[in-house]
């Protein structure tokens, strides 16, 4: 009897934590969406990775997932708790999008292709490329005015970052939303 009560209490606690975790990750409170691991720890306690895993499982049924973006270039295979604390957690779409879906989320095909070109080029150059080179590549298929407009949009949205030497890097959003390895592999495999 006592064991059953304890189990119900634990379930209720996790259900509450699940709601809290969803609110923390869904609602934007800073410049960037998502939440840092240490913020989750502060609000949910030290077993927040378990709550995140439960939330991910729950979101699966509606086509969403919890994406963890670690510091550094390559994600660790078995992340330690301090690596999780420093990581950022986002909720992203779990499934692939189709060309039809794209219209509903407000992207033109040219803009999306431009983003693909910019990101793939930067990834192929090891994560950093001169802005001029990216611009000249985009100008082969897009009018000049659109290239400038698109690049500033990608920068504003966090897909790209620029330094004082006019070098472009992958931004926080690209790291959270784009499967870099898959993008490069698919491009190389694509039959023309």
């Amino acid at each position, binding site marked *: 009897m006592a064991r059953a009560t304890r189990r119900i209490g634990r379930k209720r606690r996790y259900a509450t934590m699940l709601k809290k975790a969803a609110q923390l990750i869904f609602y934007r409170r800073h410049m960037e969406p998502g939440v840092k691991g240490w913020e989750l720890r502060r609000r949910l306690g030290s077993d927040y990775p378990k709550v995140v895993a439960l939330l991910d499982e729950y979101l699966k049924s509606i086509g969403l*997932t919890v994406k963890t973006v670690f510091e550094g270039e390559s994600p660790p295979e078995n992340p330690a708790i301090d690596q999780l604390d420093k990581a950022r957690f986002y909720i*992203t779409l779990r499934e*692939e999008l189709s060309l039809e879906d794209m219209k509903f989320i407000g992207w033109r095909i040219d803009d999306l292709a431009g983003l693909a070109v910019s990101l793939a080029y930067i990834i192929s150059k090891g994560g950093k490329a*001169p802005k001029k080179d990216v611009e000249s590549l985009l100008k082969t298929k897009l009018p000049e005015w659109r290239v400038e407009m698109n690049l500033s949009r990608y920068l504003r949205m966090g897909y790209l970052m620029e330094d004082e030497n006019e070098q472009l890097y992958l931004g926080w959003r690209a790291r959270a*939303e784009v499967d870099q390895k898959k993008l*490069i592999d698919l*491009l190389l495999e694509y039959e023309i």
Partner: protein
Amino acid sequence: MTSKRSHRIAREELRRIIEFCRVVENRGLNPFTVNVNDLIAVIRSYFPSLKDPEDLSLDAEALNRIASIIKMQSEWVKRRATSLYRDPFLIEEKLRRLSMQDLAKVFLKTWHPIVELEQVTIGSLRMAMDYWESLAPLSERWSEEELLKVMTERTTREDLVRQGILRDEAFLSEIEKMWKELKEAVRSEGRMDYWDFIGAESYEETIRRAYLTSFLVTYGYASLEIQPLEEKIFIKPNEKPIPKTSSQPVSFPIPVDYERWRKWRERRGE
């Protein structure tokens, strides 16, 4: 003549090395096109003849650039060893040849946009209402601002004592203590930089010393030497206090602002 020429050549060579490394770094070119050993040999050969600080800083910058190239080489090797590495030329070729439609199709397979909410919640509405209720009307807040306006006026010694900038002890004995300190500080040189004399660990102490120093000069214990072109002010102790009765007193304002004090501290490396 030969020495001047060799200096010029050394400078040109160093600048060429810096520029070359900068191009490789900024354009993301293959860092292994740089022969680091050759460049270091060149720098080493010129180093003994470099004397001017300008030349030495060029030499340091060239070394710094080479260090960046070595770092790039290390990253280059690391990247090639990762599973993500693919030939950049092949990728660029694909990017040029694929149509916009195909590029978008490929990208959509790898893109999982972030889902986020930016709507108002009951909790945030309640907080906003509480804030609004506790917010004073604009007219009240503006009138409070006006009350803060004060007229500038002269500071008296009594005010400074009250504010704790000056200690409440015999003023003249404090001035004489500073005079003695100044005489000891200048030693054989006869004068010292004004800021080096008044500057102290804290900004408050610096203000206090600047205030007392102004009396040192006014009462004739010391005099100022101002070099307007070099923007330098020196303070010189007098052997005996010189009463300034014969000439018309001149007022010379010296700003002792926080920024200037901070720079002085940085210059002193504290």
